[in-house]
């Protein structure tokens, strides 16, 4: 598992550097635009995209057949991608937290409150969790090329659903029930990831290389 995770981080090191530059540029724009509230969500979104790229690199190099030939178990290959997605999300959100706090200190009028930060981080984390829970099994089944097309749909699906059910959605954001909403969504996402892992393991067990 450690070797697989390290492989993903090392393969992506240049890509991560580029993304960080883009995010820092975005942070500066937000700073001068006096609205840093979206930073946590943006970092989470970009983190959510990285696992797909590792799949793409693996496919290009035909890495899986190599790893599986060298005593790595199929289950471990599958799990490593979820762990990677989680780690990169945590790291992304921690960096975002650091950036937001620093910007808040520089311009106190822009600083976010603890609950604001928590809600924004939750939105980002839930979105990243939802995205990967759906995307990873699809990549295992169809490969990155086809799954990328599906990703566009998956990315916009929440926005479409929120638009359709906007009344009930606003009710869920009422401060009185917000904590319950976050807990509910959190449980939902964890369940979705557990199901996603299960499906991925089944797909991958039958996959031929």
């Amino acid at each position, binding site marked *: 598992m450690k070797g697989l995770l390290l492989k993903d981080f090392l393969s992506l090191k240049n890509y991560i550097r580029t993304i960080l530059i883009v995010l820092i540029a975005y942070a500066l724009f937000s700073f001068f635009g006096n609205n840093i509230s979206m930073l946590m969500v943006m970092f989470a979104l970009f983190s959510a995209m990285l696992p797909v790229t590792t799949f793409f690199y693996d496919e290009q190099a035909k890495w899986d057949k190599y790893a599986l*030939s060298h005593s790595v178990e199929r289950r471990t290959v599958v799990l490593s991608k979820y762990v990677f997605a989680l780690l990169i999300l945590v790291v992304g959100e921690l960096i975002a937290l650091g950036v937001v706090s620093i910007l808040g200190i520089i311009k106190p009028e822009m600083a976010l409150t603890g609950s604001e930060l928590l809600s924004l981080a939750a939105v980002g984390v839930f979105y990243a969790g939802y995205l990967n829970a759906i995307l990873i099994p699809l990549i295992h089944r169809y490969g990155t090329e086809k799954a990328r097309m599906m990703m566009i749909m998956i990315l916009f699906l929440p926005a479409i659903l929120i638009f359709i059910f906007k009344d009930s959605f606003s009710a869920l954001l009422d401060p009185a029930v917000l904590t319950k909403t976050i807990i509910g969504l959190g449980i939902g996402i964890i369940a979705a990831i557990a199901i996603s892992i299960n499906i991925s393991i089944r797909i991958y067990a039958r996959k031929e290389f």
Partner: protein
Amino acid sequence: MSYALKVSHLTKRYPSFALNDISFEVPEGCIMGFVGENGAGKTTTIKAILNLIAKDAGKVFVYSTDMDSDEKQAKRNIAVVFDDCCFSETLSISNVVRIMSRMYPGWDSRLFYEYADAFKLPEKKIIKEYSKGMKMKLSIASALACRAKLLILDEATSGLDPIVRSEIIDIFLEHIQNGQNSILFSTHITSDLDRIADYITFIHEGKIVFSEAKDAMLDSYAILKCEEKEFRRLDSNDIVGVRKNMFGYEVLTDRKNEVLRRQPGIVYEKALIEDIMLFYTKEDVR
């Protein structure tokens, strides 16, 4: 005799191709050349051995460990070189070392750097900047650094020039010197096998044509150069393949000694692995 690899009745069916009842053994301390034309089923056999594709039937044992019941243990004794490099192009060799040392239990970083040095693999460059030959050498260095007892090579020397190939062939020979290590060497560059193989397994259209000791095989095969009269006197069982030319017939036989006993004056020359492959696979020379 103990076997490094035992493949027994391996079968895999696709709509347009099938591996049919593949059986062969690689004895410990030996190099088995695995030959056949493109599309004969060499890579499919290797993938089925490694459980990269699901077998329809058959068993695979690596140093007596059943691949189906204890795949992890069986694979701890295997290192593989595929014709693709398999490492992401954004990695450097120091990255490869960091990854492999955490992934493969027997990995020897010092040995890897020794080979990387001998193969002149640039430490600073990323794999994307490597030539095809350099990628091949990286794969070979990685496989050797796994210190696995059984090396499985799938067209591992095909991207290399003759000088480097010759060096690497020597390294393979060194690998089996301890008497336990073995190599399954799939290739269509049969001259490499003429040099180092102890056994030859020949696959054609998904079936094993033969699997035997190279010296015994080369001793029993010969290319007979016959005139019409001599050709007519040959028993049909003596003939594997025939090629007709302006001087008469070239006949591949796998019963050289019997033929020579019956027709002592017949002209013949030694058959190389490539000749045997050609006679078997080219339908029009039959």
